[in-house]
């Protein structure tokens, strides 16, 4: 009884953790914690001992034995699933094929280069959630002569990037502007990069474009297709603007704009104002610990290398230099490759009438280049020991689906789990049946 209560209490704590953080944290820290395993083992042993204690078994013990064996079988099955089963997901873009299955574990990798190609020096599964690194107890990666240390870990870090002005003349320009009127008010950055010589952003029926003077003729993108406001950077301290109206098919206004100046656009009652102008900018990335998850948080590591400490988020790249060597550090998802590819032919999204609410979704896929199947909610595909389930999908800003997400699993413990369930159900039905017919026997039992 105390074990039952113990499991109940630990589980209850787990759900609270889950509500505050997310499923992964609750799973790692509570449901798959050593305490929980210890409790479950204890339960199995107790159940076993109790059964041995009733030896030799009589007919009236049937229900009791069935149910208890069932529970043990179920737990063993679950343990097998946990240890050797695979539970991952496949990200399928429309019309493309892949055989990569992403797994829930994180992989830390380091690549090195001595001027030439990068070679993989280090790749290992890490679990900083259960075993977080610290300054006193860092996670060490030795790289030949150098050593890299992970000295801190945030599970729900927020990446923030901001633009700062720099004196380095090689860096491209950036501007921040505000568009405002009675119907909208929006502030945005536009920043050129080493590779992108024209950048733009769309604000409803209006496009704002930033470019540099010398590129303008080369790049067709600056030619307006609709209503457009074009900023052109002239030298280090001047910005020219041109307003193009699609209706009139001509440039309606042009001039030079300074910091804080307001320009009447002529589109509805919108005005545009230049808030910042950096002739040369740099992107500064900072991480903060958000403690709780939201859509933007991801895990981040504090890397200590060569006396310098830098934060690095998941799925981003950190470049480190020492003397003639360059290292690249990444934290990514663990993955495996299937022996066969899957191709998404078509993603079918049904919606409730007149709404954007999904009513059903399904993927038309080709497996192994030969088998055409439709995977939908509650209609999984079994192939080569794997089962593929329609899990979710991704859509663009307009709400059109662009990719399908399937969850994939291989579960060797499934048979045992089903067997266990069956035994429990049989046992409890028998128990019920038994009790109803032999009320007196039960009462005697109770008095013992």
């Amino acid at each position, binding site marked *: *009884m105390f074990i*039952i*209560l113990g*499991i*109940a209490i630990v*589980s*209850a704590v*787990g*759900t*609270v953790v*889950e*509500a505050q953080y*997310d*499923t992964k944290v*609750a*799973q790692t820290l*509570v*449901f798959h914690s050593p305490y929980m395993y210890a409790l479950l083992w204890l339960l199995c042993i107790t159940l076993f001992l109790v059964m041995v204690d009733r030896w030799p078994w009589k007919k009236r013990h049937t229900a009791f034995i069935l149910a208890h064996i069932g529970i043990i079988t179920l737990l063993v099955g*679950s343990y097998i*699933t946990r240890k050797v089963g695979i*539970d991952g997901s496949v990200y399928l873009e429309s019309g493309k094929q892949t055989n990569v299955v992403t797994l829930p574990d994180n992989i830390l990798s380091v690549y090195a280069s001595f001027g030439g190609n990068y070679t993989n020096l280090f790749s290992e599964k890490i679990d900083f959630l259960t075993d977080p690194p610290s300054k006193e107890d860092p996670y060490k990666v030795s790289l030949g002569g150098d050593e890299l240390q992970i000295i801190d870990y945030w599970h729900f870090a927020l990446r923030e990037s901001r633009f700062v002005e720099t004196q380095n003349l090689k860096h491209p320009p950036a501007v921040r502007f505000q568009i405002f009127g009675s119907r909208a008010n929006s502030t945005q950055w536009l920043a050129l990069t080493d590779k992108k010589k024209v950048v733009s952003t769309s604000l409803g029926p209006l496009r704002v474009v930033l470019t540099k003077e010398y590129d303008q003729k080369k790049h067709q993108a600056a030619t307006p297709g609709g209503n457009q406001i074009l900023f052109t950077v002239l030298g280090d301290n001047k910005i020219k603007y041109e307003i193009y109206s699609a209706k009139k098919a001509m440039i309606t206004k042009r001039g030079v704009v300074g910091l804080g100046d307001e320009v009447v656009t002529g589109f509805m009652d919108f005005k545009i104002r230049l808030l910042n102008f950096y002739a040369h900018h740099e992107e500064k990335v900072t991480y903060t610990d958000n403690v*709780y*998850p*939201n*859509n*933007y948080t991801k895990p981040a590591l504090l890397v200590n290398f060569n006396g310098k400490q830098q934060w690095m988020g998941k799925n981003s790249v950190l470049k480190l230099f020492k003397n003639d060597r360059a290292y690249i550090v990444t934290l990514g998802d663990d993955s495996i490759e299937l022996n066969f590819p899957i191709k998404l032919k078509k993603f079918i999204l*049904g*919606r*409730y*009438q*007149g*709404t954007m*609410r*999904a*009513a*059903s979704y399904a993927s038309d896929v080709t497996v192994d280049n030969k088998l055409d199947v439709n995977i939908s*909610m*509650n209609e*999984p595909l079994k192939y080569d020991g794997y*089962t593929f*389930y329609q*899990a979710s999908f991704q859509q663009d800003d307009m709400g059109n689906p662009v990719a399908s997400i399937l*969850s*994939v*699993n291989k*579960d060797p413990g*499934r048979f045992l*789990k*089903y067997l266990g*369930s069956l035994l*429990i*159900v049989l046992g*409890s*039905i028998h*128990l*019920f049946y038994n009790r109803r017919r032999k009320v007196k026997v039960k009462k005697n*039992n*109770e*008095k*013992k």
Partner: protein
Amino acid sequence: MKKNSLFLTLVIIVSSLFIGMTEVKAKSVTESLKYIPVQDRGRIKPFDSFARETLQLVYGKQKYKGKPAYDVIFTWYLVPDHWIKEKVIQVNHNGLRESLKLDKEETYYTPMQLMQNERMSLFFKELASKQNSGDKLSGYYQAVQRLQSQMSIFQAIRMGHGFLMIPGPEVKDRWRSVAQYNEEETKRYYKMSDAYVATISNLKTQETKKSSDGSQLTAAINEFIKANETNVRANYFDQSLLNSEVSYNNLQPFMWTWILYLLGGVLFLLFFLFKNKHLYSTALVFIIGGFLLHSYGFGIRVYLAGRPPVANMYETLLWVPWGAIFFALILEKIRRTNLLLFVASIAATLCMIITSLAPNVFDPSLQPLEPVLKSSFWLTTHVLIITISYGAFFLAWGIGNIMMLFYLKGEEKHQAFLKESAETIYKTLQIGIVLLAAGIILGGIWADYSWGRFWGWDPKETWALIALLGYLALLHGRLVGWVKNFAMGAGSILAFSLVIMAWYGVNYVLGAGLHSYGFGVGGVEYVAFAIFVQFLFVAVVAVLRRSRK
């Protein structure tokens, strides 16, 4: 000019009507409005349902100063300038009222007043950024969210975007609203509203009876619907479904059900006091009548929604008492304890009163299912079985409480009764446990089949398991003799809080996990208080009992 003056007279007539509205008659003459099919939130419903749900959301009630919802909502578009100055927007949240600098003595505000409130749009922006980042919404922002939907639906209707009354050529198309009608369609729509105005102004001035009977309005509505069928799509809605929904709305079967259950319960109580056989049979008649009505209400709901009624909190709150009464009737037939039916009728009344008291917390509207809930026999079965097991636990809870009362009255005199009750609890818990275990396992099988995992420590399944473990502990304790009669009664009361957590708490307090289709907000403080009172009650009884010994 002419149009303007006509409009002005219209405004005057209608607003004067609403100011001194007393007619009860108006209900019946404009009733045909109810039957206009509209598209709303993914399904076709009668204007009656649309109006009730809208008014419920905005004003928090299904009537405004005695006027039925369909009259109120229809005139939001007809005479928006009148309504913009009426106090129709309900703001319940104290903090929100404070930060909007609204008069704290009131709960209802005019749309005008709120539209002119500069802070409101600021809060909406904050809400949008919270929603984008996926942060959990606090109670305050949930209130902001409600205000936003209240304002946006009022504005939509006022501007003519609210009534989606003309279908598109395809089933999946979004229907068009008044603002998008072509000239012919607009004419037909105005014919309806003119007929409406004529009908109620005739009522007001009490002219000839002939024109005030609403037939003119009915004709205009029929013409409108017919034109849609000829011009856009034949049979664009199911007339019989629509009619049943209106009659379902009119009948309010679940309200009558709990009234019958309550009467049955009271009669049972009288029977216990006076031991009159007639009282017993009358009580039984009331409860069976309630049960039949309950089943009928369920049937019609299933027919309207085209699915089993277990998709949200409201529906399970109706289903669990159904289960409780069902078990009680069966056990009554077998054992004739009388007690069970009494407990069941009280428990059922309690559940169902809650649903009618808090429609904003437990949304009674019929809504389409999430994709994951569709087309699965196992899914439905596991939910039905689990929730019905709650019905059994509910019974045990009721008996437990009655036992506590008898312990207060004095233990010695009622030994036999208490022993009998503990036995009954044991029986009931057995039923509950078998059902709950089976339901949890079925849920696992279903999850394995459609998601690929048997057990994922999802809060809903975990709490169902916790409740199961709690009751199992109780039963095992009883078997080895640790749990005596008193502990059995007390345990069945305390363990029921686990059921409440699994049933209500996961969705309304934790709000996490995969069972997200049943999530909602509100009522937490009341539920917590009720549980607190229960624990206190058990504790007091336990202490008194000890001190008496």
